[in-house]
């Protein structure tokens, strides 16, 4: 079996296993839907020009996408690692030819597919329930690339959390603790102008910031995005490598 074959085998099993868990599938897609409905349709933009949602609706498209790009891989990969560890699956896999990197890559591919579908749903919903009008340009073709690269990055981070946490509960708590600050402090829903000057370096240090900036430059405010994609890609490779190394092999 070639490396590609092993990755395909692992990805196929992981995808089937996920798609047959109806509750997991439902909430994976329902979560971003309810978020868009609440913040896009119910809360809406503050009409007086102040407050949290003061920007035009299109500004928040990266934020809605970031919700699934960030939360879903973190919790899914982290939980998968916890489940594998609890079920002795890594012990078994350690005696097969698949490597840790191949395993993580396979699960990353599954997440890219799932989150890609969820992102499409979000885009459609944003257009339908808000007055956002995404910019249609050739650059729009790079949007799936941003999503895929960001998902890979957070799959790597999820693997790290899954390896460090000692239980599924621990993984969920850890991923929420990491994801919530990242989500709101990465130029997604909160613009930099609302943050103190001294905190801006922290915003620049967040990987999600580059996803938000790049996707905003594509769908809302046309501008350069290649630099953001480059930074995101380098970080994704680094996190995937770290995550693969962290995937348990032994007890």
């Amino acid at each position, binding site marked *: *079996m*070639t*490396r590609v*074959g*092993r990755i*395909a*085998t*692992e990805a*196929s*099993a*992981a995808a*089937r*296993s996920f798609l*047959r*868990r109806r509750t997991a599938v439902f909430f994976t897609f329902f979560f971003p839907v309810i978020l868009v409905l609440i913040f896009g349709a119910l809360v809406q933009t503050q009409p007086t020009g102040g407050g949290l949602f003061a920007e035009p609706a299109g500004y928040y498209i990266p934020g809605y996408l970031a919700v699934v790009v960030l939360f879903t891989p973190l919790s899914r990969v982290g939980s998968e690692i916890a489940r594998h560890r*609890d*079920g*002795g*699956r*890594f*012990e*078994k*896999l*350690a*005696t*097969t*030819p*698949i*490597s*840790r*990197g*191949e*395993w993580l890559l396979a699960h990353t591919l599954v997440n890219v597919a799932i989150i890609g579908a969820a992102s499409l749903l979000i885009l459609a919903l944003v257009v339908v329930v808000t007055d956002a009008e995404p910019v249609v340009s050739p650059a729009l073709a790079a949007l799936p690339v941003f999503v895929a690269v960001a998902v890979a990055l957070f799959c790597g981070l999820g693997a790290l959390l899954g390896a460090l946490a000692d239980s599924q509960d621990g993984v969920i708590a850890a991923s929420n603790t990491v994801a919530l600050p990242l989500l709101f402090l990465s130029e997604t829903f909160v613009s930099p102008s609302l943050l103190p000057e001294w905190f801006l370096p922290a915003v620049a240090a967040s990987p999600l910031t580059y996803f938000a900036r790049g996707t905003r430059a594509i769908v809302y405010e046309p501008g350069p995005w290649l630099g953001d994609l480059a930074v995101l890609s380098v970080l994704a490779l680094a996190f995937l490598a770290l995550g693969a190394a962290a*995937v348990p*092999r*032994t*007890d």
Partner: protein
Amino acid sequence: MNETAAASASAAEDGEPDRAGGGAADAVAATDSDPVVVGEGVRKSYGEVVALDGVDIRVEPGEVFGLIGPNGAGKTTLVRALTGTTEAEGDLRVFGAPPREVDPQRIGLLPQAFDPPERLTASELVEYYGGLYDAARDVESVLRDVGMADDADAWYETLSGGQKRRTCVATAIVNDPDLLFLDEPTTGIDPAGRRSIHRLIERLADGGTTVFLTSHAMDEVERLADRVALLRDGAVVAVGPPDELIAEHGGEPSLEVALDGPASEGDVEAVREAVREAVREALSDESTESARAGEGEAEKASGRAEKASASKDAPAVESTREGLRIGGVRPEGIGDAVDALEAAGVDFESLAWSEPSLEDVYLRLTGEEYSPRSGEFGETAPDGGDR
């Protein structure tokens, strides 16, 4: 997961020489007659707890090697050390290579606690694990081997405990391994299922597969294993073929005499005296026979009779919950024992003769010997064994 193997596979795909280094090369160089598994001075600690304390072990090609021992003795840790899923000190070699450098195609593992991915059918699970190898057996034939062909399309979580375990066994043999580690393969399996696993192990062994089996089912190990090692407190205290272990550590055959309750001290003493007399007579008869053969033999037989008569331990008669137990009774001595019971005036309901088994060896060497008087297991000083 197997980094070295993946590197090897990758190298092969790229047309490069094997990069697994000495390990894989050694494995190739190992001859068919070399031991499949060698462990010398294997040690492993979890903090203050010593799991393996200098284990020496050797498994020959085609052998079914049984590993028994109480909970916490270190069986699973040893399996993990041998499969490279835990780090251990000492010299460990599998097919002549360190465990992590062995070609995974040659190894099959059923971990003790194993819960495969959910929402996959038995067939899909076997296909999944088979898909990770360079070559895999046909899924249907593997499921047939473990008696799961009729339930191939059932989701794993809907299977019974025994069916689940059999499916897990199937995932361990799908790559047709040369060395199969089965860590308690029949836990939770009903007798029919166990029998199908036993037959499978026998077939695999007949086909040349080396099987490393851990189990708490002593009858299973006694039936299947060519050699058995008993682990206690992280050390091997006895190793050898089951028959030899039983002969050395299992004690003597015994006759269980069912009365209408525990025998009184008087009954026990009367039977003991009657059995002693029967032994004396038997040896006296032997002495007479020997006298015809020669004077020296007669003297020896006479000496044995005197010793038997004088020794308080000669007839091991004990009261049990159901009646009493006469130790050291061989099949040809059952008639004498019955005579002794009648001579002692003991009315019995039934007799049951039993040979020592691997379970007796286990109980003696682990210090958990059964007490016939109380009908309970208790902590006793274990036999020293050959630690």
